[in-house]
């Protein structure tokens, strides 16, 4: 067997997520198994102990998220995985992680909802929850894979962004991408960039847990260096608004500065965070805007439309949040119509409409009957609008 052949694997999306997490340096997992994310917990329970990491099955999703935050404060890269019902339960603590700036990765493998919904069927109904599921004005970084290999890549990226920005990052997958087995050749660890959180360079006595690093003074979007608990840097962590010293404050100016900074941290780095893929867009008049497994049906539909002489193209959203305003605006300026197929009742189509701002007509297409779109359904809409 050649060296290249020996690296070829047939792997599930959920398995690729685990491989990506371990490659990125994840050494702590706490979770409560739930379909269709369960393989992630199963595989983590096998793999982590052998790498000196910790796996804990917690009493529920709330406890799982709390444990992940605790582990990260202790200095480990930490994650959890769940599906809709568990994602709902984790929201309060996701907000805690956002305000306390604790890096962590949350995987949500979407199934049909609301409530227990349909555990074994695909959906994309959590995309707005991933943005606004926890209360208050918080930043959100949400990545959405469409293949097994991309599940690996985006899991690594989720950890890198979480660490670099000190913020929770959500990887939002769906039942199709999570369960299908696909041919992959995973990169060697040496081919990948792995990012670690900024740590303090000042002595413990001079450490301000929420203050700027030397050189970052005066910036309104700085990422404060983070000390590992137990490493000699004593500090206070609270879900209340706090000053640079980490203690609660009722000072309106300090509160506003904190809230604006944790959002600016993400907003000012938008160009680095937002990723899209463009297919056949140069002369496209009918553009499909899609994400996750739906984008695979859409790509087939666009190829079939092209074969029929229709000027169709695909804009695939890889980063869901922050939203790809600029890419959508640019495409809307040249296209006649944007078709947005989603396995929900039109959650992202309204964002597309907002970004397009009237430059192109936006046509939402919903499918919520437990099945992935077929290419023909999307092709039919393309033909209608062409």
């Amino acid at each position, binding site marked *: 067997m050649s060296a290249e052949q020996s690296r070829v694997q047939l792997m599930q999306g959920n398995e690729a997520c685990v491989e990506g997490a371990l490659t990125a340096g994840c050494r702590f997992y706490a979770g409560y198994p739930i379909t269709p994310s369960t393989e992630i917990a199963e595989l983590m329970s096998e793999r982590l102990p052998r790498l000196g990491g910790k796996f804990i099955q917690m009493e529920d999703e709330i406890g799982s998220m709390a444990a992940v935050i605790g582990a990260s404060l202790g200095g480990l890269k930490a994650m959890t995985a769940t599906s809709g019902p568990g994602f709902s339960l984790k929201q309060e603590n996701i907000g805690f992680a956002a305000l306390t700036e604790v890096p962590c990765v949350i995987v949500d493998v979407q199934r049909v909802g609301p409530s227990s919904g349909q555990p074994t069927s695909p959906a994309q109904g959590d995309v707005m929850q991933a943005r606004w599921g926890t209360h208050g004005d918080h930043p959100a970084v949400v990545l959405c894979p469409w293949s097994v290999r991309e599940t690996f890549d985006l899991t690594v990226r989720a950890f890198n962004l979480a660490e670099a920005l000190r913020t929770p990052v959500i990887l939002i997958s769906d039942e199709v991408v999570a369960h299908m*087995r*696909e*041919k992959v050749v995973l990169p060697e660890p040496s081919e990948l960039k792995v990012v670690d959180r900024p740590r303090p360079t000042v002595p413990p006595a001079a450490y301000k847990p929420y203050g700027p690093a030397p050189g970052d003074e005066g910036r309104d979007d700085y990422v404060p260096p983070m000390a590992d608990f137990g490493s000699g840097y004593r500090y206070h962590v609270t879900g209340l608004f706090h000053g640079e010293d980490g203690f609660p404050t009722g000072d309106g100016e300090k509160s506003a500065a904190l809230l604006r900074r944790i959002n600016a941290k993400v907003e000012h780095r938008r160009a680095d965070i937002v990723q899209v893929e463009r297919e056949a867009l140069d002369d496209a008049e009918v553009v499909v805007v899609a994400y996750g497994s739906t984008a695979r049906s859409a790509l087939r539909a666009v190829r079939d439309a092209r074969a029929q002489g229709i000027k169709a193209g695909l804009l695939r959203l890889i980063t869901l949040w922050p939203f790809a305003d600029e890419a959508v605006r640019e495409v809307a300026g040249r296209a006649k119509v944007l078709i947005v197929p989603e396995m929900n009742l039109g959650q992202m189509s309204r964002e597309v409409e907002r970004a397009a701002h009237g430059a192109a007509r936006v046509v939402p297409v919903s499918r919520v009957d437990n099945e992935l779109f077929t290419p023909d359904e999307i092709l039919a809409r393309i033909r209608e609008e062409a």
Partner: protein
Amino acid sequence: MARVEIRLSGEGGQGVILAGIILAEAAAIFDGKNAIQTQSYGPESRGGASKSEVVVDEGDIDYPEVRRPDILLALTQEACDKYASSLAPGGTLVTDETFVQSPPKVDGQVYSAGITKIAREKLGKEIVANIVALGVLVALTGVVSSEAIERAVLSRVPRGTEDLNRRALQEGFTAGETILHRV
């Protein structure tokens, strides 16, 4: 070779999910093509109808699911009745004559082989019927090479059962080739 869609169907316990994984690994790892395997997921995995699907292509695979299978394996009458009409025109239907008494009329080739009977009588283990089925399928369709399917089977089955599974695959090849010579 352009896109080929394969649907393996039967009931829970017949090993169609594993057969699909092995077939996809044969194509992806040992024949160097692209492959995706998907399966019905849910109550089927605990008895009742079960199906496993594989898409094989020389090029990249966009849509991951099977629409009209070019190759359909039906290990039970129920599966046969349910999926026969989905066969692509000119496709190949392979049934297990142990359980499928009346193969339906389809626009394509229909082959019947005593898959489970072979596993029971020639190999003494009904559990390897799925591997016999893979042998029959590969002999009849050439969807993957015989070397690739053998390597894929041997790399997936539990240690200590390699010989049994190799023989099961061989019996499947023989049954498939016998059918071809008869036609």
